[in-house]
């Protein structure tokens, strides 16, 4: 399972960075989304995957006696998903507005801010 997730994470990172390096603004957004998902999977993976061991202490004991699935990475991912969802929806609106005003989807055309004025 770990090896499969590791490969998926790698593919998501690679695909995300490849998409960011394209010229189109839509591909840029897609790249950022893929990268965000890659990061979330990475956190999940590095929190160690433990199958079928929920972090609940049995009634008769006071501490964990067995291995247990760490709940912290899942809380972190949940926060990260919500944050990146907000950022991505902002990005989509921003790109749409930028496309309407600038009338281009090509990132190489975005050079008015570099000109002297």
């Amino acid at each position, binding site marked *: 399972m770990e090896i499969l997730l590791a490969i998926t994470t790698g593919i998501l990172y690679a695909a995300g960075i490849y998409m960011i390096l394209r010229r189109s603004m839509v591909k840029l957004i897609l790249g950022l989304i893929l990268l965000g998902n890659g990061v979330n999977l*990475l956190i999940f993976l*590095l929190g160690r995957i433990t199958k079928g061991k929920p972090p609940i202490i049995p009634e008769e004991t006071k501490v964990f006696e067995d291995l247990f699935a760490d709940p912290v990475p899942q809380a972190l991912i949940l926060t990260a998903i919500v944050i990146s969802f907000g*950022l991505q929806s902002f990005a989509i609106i921003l790109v749409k507005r*930028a496309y309407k005003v600038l009338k281009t989807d090509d*990132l190489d055309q975005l050079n008015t801010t570099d000109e*002297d004025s």
Partner: protein
Amino acid sequence: MSEQLIILPLLINLVLSIGLMFFWTNIKAQKVLSISGSFIAMLASIWVFIHVWENGIQTFQAGSWEAPFGITFVGDTLAATLVLLTGISAFAVSIFAAVSVIKARLRFGFFSVFHFLIMGLNGAFLTGDMFNLYVWFEIIIISSFVLISLGGEKNQLEGAVKYFTLNFLASMIFLTGLGVLYGLTGTLNMADLSQKIPLIQNQALVDVTAFLFLVGFGIKSAVFPLYFWLPASYHTPPSAVSAIFSGLLTKVGVYALIRVFTLIFVNDSFIEIMLQSLAILTIFSGGIGAIIQKNIRKLFSYLIICHIGFMIGGLGLFTEVAMAGVIFYLIHDIVVKTNLFLVSGLIYRLKSTTSLDRLGGIYKSYPKLSLLMAIPLFSLVGIPPLSGFWPKLSLLLAGFNEGNYWYFGAVIFGSLVTLIAIAHVWAKAFWEDGKDVKHSKKFIAFDQLRSYQKMQYVVPIVFLALVSLYIGFGAEHIQQVSTRIATEVLDKQTYFNAVFK
């Protein structure tokens, strides 16, 4: 009881941000509330600073969850000083924004987002938890995205796309680093991390994580190969927004670098060499970029990059003298850079342009205002006894003592280039004869403003100029503060003991 109160400036800004939403259409009420609220927040941050100065490091465990399980807020002297400077800059900018930002922008919740940004800044300085730092960073960037694109002008949207992409990428790299860090240590509390990182067997992986943090924070603070978003975007929003961005946003990146590389990844020679060489390259590229600019706001943007190099290099040297220099420079830089962009806003209001080709004759028509604007400009250059001089002295001394003559030379080069750039601005915009500038009919010149509006333009600049004069003439006090911060920052055991008491 007073432990909880270290997050008071943060709470005031949160309440303000929410409260302002109830006055969505009433712009006048928003202005009054924002200015008075920032003033109260500034008083609170002064209280926090005095409290921390007198009683040492204050910690607050959110929800009484003991560290390392809960989120800890740590008010050490570094955090308290930065919170104080945030309060001062935010107060000045809120006065300036109330008059300089046009109504169309104010109507879409400008002030609400502005205070949200200030809240994020305070939170980032005060937190003692790595993941919480990430959350504060996201709060900062989402509100800065709104501020930078509010108004929707062509170059603003273009700048926003560039700014957004690079900052989002930086957050993702930071989050990747966090994931690896958690996988290595199983904790996210900074104090706990500082003890657990040296115990890890696989130090190569620690180096990789440190590098991820360096890249993530490096993008945010505009360090050498990753700075291109800054000059492409910082001159597009209104001056009040650029002022708070240039004064505080890039400095949060520097703060995070200081925190991470003095507390968590310490004695890492690879990172130290990396920081020093990046610093030299940053100083050179920022400085050379600044000389050729024709727009003063772009020129100031390149100077930000140049001066980030001073601080990063001092951090890389990692001695007490160097750290004191870095902290002093940080204190000076926040005040002066905020003021510089306010000055550029005032110049725009006077002459309806910020292009050096078309500016001129400001000294002739406004001699008193010119003298006022000279204070931040020459403080930045660091002509003794103004504020930029003293920290550079410490940095040069540290570079010389450590035998890092490249950095030593780079600091001299950076100061010289700053001098040339500012002298160029001064000669072109202030001394050279004025040219007739055609401005559009909608433009309201400074002379046509009512007297209270004129005051609103001038008072924040006077206020920040007084602060930077104090930093220059009262250098002894600031040196005392920065030396104390430097000793505190270099001794991670005190920080650990304050969190786990």
